[in-house]
């Protein structure tokens, strides 16, 4: 049961990633693309956690942790770039 659930979940997240890439590609505006990339970060966290469960290993969770943190920083940086041009002022 768990395996099947895992596979369904992984497939759904992978499909989500594809949808995000679609949005990234068509835009039309920068905020859309930024949102798409940010969503990809979030979905990747879930994917890494799912890998962890699949392999029964927690070795990858730091990667998920870092994506959660660093993805936020890079999204913030791009938004700041749009708002103010200069991201550190």
């Amino acid at each position, binding site marked *: 049961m768990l395996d099947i659930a895992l596979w369904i979940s992984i497939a759904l997240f992978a499909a989500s990633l594809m949808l995000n890439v679609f949005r990234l590609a068509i835009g039309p*505006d920068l905020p859309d693309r930024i949102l798409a990339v940010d969503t990809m970060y979030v979905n990747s966290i*879930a994917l890494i956690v799912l890998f962890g469960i699949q392999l029964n290993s927690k070795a990858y969770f730091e990667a998920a942790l870092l994506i959660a943190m660093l993805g936020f920083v890079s999204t913030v940086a791009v938004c700041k770039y749009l708002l103010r041009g200069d991201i550190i002022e």
Partner: protein
Amino acid sequence: MPTWFYPVLEGVIAFFLVAGGIFAFIGSLGLTHLKDFYMRLHGPSKTTTLGVGCVLMASMIYFRATTGHFSFQEMLITIFLFITAPATAHLLSKAALHQKLVADIRTRNVPDQLETASEPDEANAQQTESRLP
């Protein structure tokens, strides 16, 4: 932990996993299908976050059951996500407003009747998209 508990636990985990996947998918679907940026922002910032939260929950239960330890990482990730997601959404909408993105008529925060009253011109009213003032 009694042995009968495991299938139940498995069921719970499976539920969270599938639910998480579905939520995330719906969020991304929203990102793809909704009409303007302000609508699209809802999908990822709420639904997808919830979906990932579900998966993290499943992982927490799973590793608590298999290793017997409470795992901090999922906790930390969850905290990070739930703190940052609103901030991201806020900043993004700020950026979008700053960029004066095209908005659907329904996201312009104008009451229906007012809108029709202010825009008597038939051609204009039919145009669903226009620049925000």
